[in-house]
């Protein structure tokens, strides 16, 4: 299956002064699969994310993105916006970062900036209203409309994003990331703050993104019900290192993982597990 890898992280190391946030981390994410990155608070998950999406420059190690045609992009060498533009990696944020003063529709239009910029002839063709630009704009609006329909926000397309309820904002942020037509979608705690019904809907949305669009997903999540339900592969981190990985069920029963989450050491965890039937 080695040719069906989309993201290959090797010996990733991230230091902040004396603090080693991520230490020699290697993992891979498969194409058209949902890979979850879990771990207790402060394990370094978001740091990994920021390295993958270019918001941090890793101290050492390589991050490679392998496109469908075999084109390989070295992510650690690119700037954040180039990663989004050239490597087709999109991301969402732990604390939602929408454009609150712009409408839901406008948010999705901004996401298609680069395609529209080309179509508008770097603004000059757009300024004179060339037909090529008009067609591209219509296409972009249609794409935005499709996504608004998918996340059930078509009715609120003209409302300010900052006025939407929390759950809708989460879904809108995912839709905005998808409007950049990414190969890899990185979601930083998409289920945080959602109620049970909303996180169930979120799971469905993510599964349909994987199945209908063939987009690979890398996911940080604390909500175990979401992780266990939708992920194909789980990587567990603690204190900046990988402590386990595998299919959700295997990871859930791994004593090291339980120890990390319960804050106990490994022997105690094994004892606990053996005492419970």
């Amino acid at each position, binding site marked *: 299956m080695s040719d069906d890898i989309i993201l290959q992280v090797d010996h990733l190391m991230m230091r902040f002064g004396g603090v080693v946030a991520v230490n020699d981390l290697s993992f891979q994410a498969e194409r058209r699969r949902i890979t979850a990155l879990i771990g207790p608070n402060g394990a370094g998950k978001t740091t990994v994310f920021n390295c993958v999406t270019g918001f941090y420059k890793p101290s050492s190690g390589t991050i490679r993105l392998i496109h469908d045609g075999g084109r390989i992009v070295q992510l650690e060498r690119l700037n954040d916006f180039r990663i*989004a533009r050239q490597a087709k990696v*999109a991301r969402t944020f732990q604390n939602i970062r*929408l454009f*609150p003063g712009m409408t839901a529709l406008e948010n999705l239009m901004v996401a298609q900036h680069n395609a*529209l910029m080309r179509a508008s002839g770097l603004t000059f063709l757009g*300024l004179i209203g060339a037909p090529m630009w008009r067609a591209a704009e219509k296409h972009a609006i249609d794409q935005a409309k499709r996504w608004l329909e998918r996340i059930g926000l078509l009715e609120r397309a*003209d409302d300010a994003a900052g006025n939407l309820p929390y759950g809708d904002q989460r879904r809108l942020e995912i839709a905005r990331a998808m409007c950049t037509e990414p190969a890899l979608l990185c979601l930083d705690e998409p289920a945080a703050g959602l109620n049970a019904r909303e996180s169930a809907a979120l799971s469905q949305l993510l599964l349909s993104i994987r199945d209908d669009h063939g987009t690979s997903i890398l996911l940080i999540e604390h909500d175990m019900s979401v992780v266990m339900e939708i992920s194909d592969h789980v990587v567990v981190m603690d204190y900046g290192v990988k402590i386990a990985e595998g299919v959700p069920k295997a990871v859930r029963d791994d004593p090291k993982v339980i120890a990390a989450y319960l804050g106990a050491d490994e022997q105690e965890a094994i004892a606990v597990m053996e005492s419970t039937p």
Partner: protein
Amino acid sequence: MTTTPASTQASPLPGFAFILKKALISAFVALVLFSLMIGIRTEAGPTGHLIYWTRFNDLAALVGAVFGGSIVVELLRRWWAPSGIGKALPQSMQRPLDFAGRAIPPLLLIFTLLVPVIFYNQRYILDLGILVLTYVMLGWGLNVVVGLAGLLDLGYVAFYAVGAYSYALLSTTFGLSFWTCLPLAGILAAFWGVLLGFPVLRLRGDYLAIVTLAFGEIIRLVIINWQSLTGGPNGISAIPRPSFFGIPLTPGDDGLAARLGIEFSPTHRIVFLFYLITALALLTNWVTIRLRRLPIGRAWEALREDEVACRALGINTTTTKLTAFATGAMFGGFAGAFFATRQGFISPESFTFQESALVLAIVVLGGMGSQLGVALAALTLIGGFELFRGFDQYRMLVFGMAMVLLMIWRPRGLIGHRAPTVFLKHRQAISSDLAREGRG
């Protein structure tokens, strides 16, 4: 109209005692402040000794005014919610207001176009109109940088100066006409905008403001000190007047008046200048409105809202910021070239920080990003400044007070909402409370 009392009662009313208490505190502060400043007047006597006399009547009047004014302000705040008119007004009032909002821009435009006809014989009004329109244009230009892209620029006057000096030097040295120099002035100003943009790209918020402020001063100091090129503090005089597309507006045989077979009048040139600046301002407005609906304009606004999210979406924030600086600077350059041709004489004194501050005040007062707001604010500020001329030495005081009152009622500017650039069903205004002001 039954909703009117209901909606006013719904807002929490801390009662008259609270208002009275607040007014008393304000009056006391005023008493302490003014007792020495106003209450006692000191002067050097004829032999150099100190004479002083008391002015308790003035002091009492002032404290009384503060007391009364404080009550009035509090009461007005009850009626008008602090952020925008939309929240406090009942639904029944909303529709006429929307209608008024849509009717104002065309009416203003028609009125502007008719000004030279109505006030043909009043040179003062025409000159004032040209001045107001120049500031409308500058405001619209700066609005691209501050209002849309959210980059606080305190040195906007630098581009105005670059435009003015470009035209003055090109026309006096090489004899180029106004219509050749106008685009050149714009391009040169845009070039300086990019040049300023590069070093400040990494800066945000206050730091950006300080550097742009310094840039404005540097340009002025260079102009003062580069005597051989710019004439230093003496400025440049005998700048050619604009021609009517090649036909000079002079009393001679080849002048416009002679060709049209009408009697020459110096007012012709003023009227021509009036329409020229109207056209330039409208061009600025048209381009800005178009740009807002293009990806670059949306990227500017997105940049103001959240720069990090922009980068995550693959937007090159560096070039986006530079285009905002360049576009704003270009319009500043056009306005500068117009200023030079109108005055016929320019000197560094016209390009002080006060001009930057005034243009910025127009943008902020108008409501960041609102084209109509900027136009109204320019009219209020420049026109109001003239209106208060009768108040003589108290002009600045009255003017300042008017500004403070305006900012209490409309903290987000005269037009406190932004219009979406694209919509599916209906265009609904977004309250500026949601939109961010940008952090650099």
